[in-house]
């Protein structure tokens, strides 16, 4: 369609507010953290250029390094455990067993409950005195397995990490979207060839849901890297910074008015995110399907 004069003016006016806000809240902030990561600044006095010293400072900081490691563990758990579980459940519910819609709703539920409320809930689950988990263990006579789950050095990270791994609804729904688009004829052909359910899943469903799975893996990795609320509310990074994440580290730097290291860790987070997204894209592009 050829654009009329009115169309041109209309497009310009319609794009303007949205693009301005995008500029203000996406592009400028990203440029800002990159630029300011080379300065020392406390938010009050003038900023002074310090080269890469913010980077060398955070990279040699053990808390920051621990945070990066935690984020990577988190991302690996999400992509290698949570997404495969979600895919499995998508395959199962795609067969439309009795009540599948109800189960889909139930699995998705944690997604609409806020991270704060979930943290509150799991704080109660993990509580050492009246918590659910220790309660179950005592009931089974396994008192010696009881822990102060969020307070002990060895259990804190697994505790903040594990509970959401089994919340698979979000990724399951995305994969189901792809699965529902696969034509019956593929399965009928496989049936005639004598392929059972498992082989049908491996050779038809999963390859044809590749895009959805790739989306889930990307989202899972990205969401793991920006993890903040759960650790902030459950442990605040403790005990002994065992559960710190990059964003929590950044937040604490900001609280201490150390904007330079805060921005440097933002940049590290963004770059790590880009690297992870690129490698996921690359991996999936090498996965040849039908």
């Amino acid at each position, binding site marked *: 369609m050829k654009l009329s004069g009115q169309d041109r003016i209309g497009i310009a006016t319609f794009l303007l507010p949205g693009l301005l*806000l*995008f500029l203000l809240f996406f592009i400028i902030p990203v440029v800002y953290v990159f630029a300011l990561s080379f300065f020392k600044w406390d938010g009050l006095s003038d900023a002074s250029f310090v080269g890469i010293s913010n980077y060398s400072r955070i990279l040699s900081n053990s808390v920051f390094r621990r945070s990066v490691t935690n984020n990577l563990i988190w991302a690996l758990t999400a992509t290698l455990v949570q997404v495969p579980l979600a895919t499995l459940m998508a395959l*199962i519910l795609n067969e439309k067993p009795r009540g599948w819609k109800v189960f889909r709703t139930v699995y998705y539920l944690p997604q*609409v409950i806020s991270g704060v409320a979930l943290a509150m809930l799991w704080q109660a689950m993990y509580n050492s005195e009246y918590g659910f988990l220790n309660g179950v263990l005592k009931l089974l006579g396994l008192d010696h397995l009881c822990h102060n789950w969020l307070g002990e050095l060895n259990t804190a990270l697994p505790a903040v990490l594990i509970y959401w791994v089994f919340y698979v609804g979000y990724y399951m729904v*995305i994969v189901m979207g792809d699965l529902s688009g696969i034509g019956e004829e593929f399965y009928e052909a496989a049936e005639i060839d004598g392929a059972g359910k498992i082989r049908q899943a491996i050779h038809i469903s999963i390859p044809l849901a590749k895009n959805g799975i790739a*989306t889930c893996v990307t989202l899972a990795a990205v969401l793991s890297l*920006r993890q903040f609320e759960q650790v902030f509310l459950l442990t605040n990074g403790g005990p002994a910074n065992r559960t710190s994440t990059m964003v929590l580290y950044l937040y604490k730097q900001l609280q201490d008015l150390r904007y330079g290291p805060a*921005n440097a*860790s*933002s940049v590290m987070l963004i770059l790590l995110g880009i690297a992870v997204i690129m490698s996921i894209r690359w991996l999936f592009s090498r996965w040849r399907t039908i």
Partner: protein
Amino acid sequence: MTEFTLHKKRNTISSILNVLKWLLIIFFAVYTLFPLIWLVVSSLKTNTELFGSPFALPKEWQFVNYQSAIQVSGMPLMMANSIIVGLASTLINAIISCMLAYCLSRFVFKGRGFIYTLFSAGILVPLNALMVPYFVTINKLGLYNTLIGLIILYSSTGIPMSTIIISGLMDSIPHDIEEAAIIDGCGFYRRFTKIILPLSRNGIMTAATFQFITCWNEFVFANLLTSSQNVRTIQLGIRYFTNQFSTDFVSMYAATVLSIIPSVLLFVVFQNRIISGLGSGAVKG
């Protein structure tokens, strides 16, 4: 004979698979629901009951916990703040995103592909990494500790996602309708309000539902950009429950349950939109 054993073997495998399937289905359902049910039941106990027998049902259902939850937490104000922020930013976000989506979906112009790429990338930007610039910008605008600051931030950060959802739906509207309207002398703006907007109702509702739930549940920036009690949103409120209720755990749980209800209700009402929105690739950057 061999045909028969093969058949039998198949049957055993498929019944084992069937059992496994249901074990998984039930495991995930119990895992999701049980803690929530436990929270609701605990919120109706006395504190002594909670400590004494965490799994038993309460002797008498303590609905009074909910009353004290509302009184102690100052919940009505926080709910009101969250509703104001949620509705205002959903409305602003929807208007701006519809305008963007209309241009991107219905016209071919220079830079269109670039904007799509920017927005797809925007969905994946880790907003948490932008705490410092957001903090500085909102302060500079004089909007620290105001609901308006949150509204502007939420409506803006939701733009890429909403625009992509809405334009995805607009793409499916046939061009003939517009061409007929152009012949009838319908201009740029009339085509938007009279034809495209009404036909994209579903996409707009999906985007708006996502946006509202996201705003309702948002914690990080509400925590960063406000400090006083009169602008506190409900999510921030939950965080302070631990201080406010100190050892009155059951009332704290009651308050938490109350805070969850609105978004869960919204989800139950609009779940088909949310699920079809996700399934149709709204988030595929």
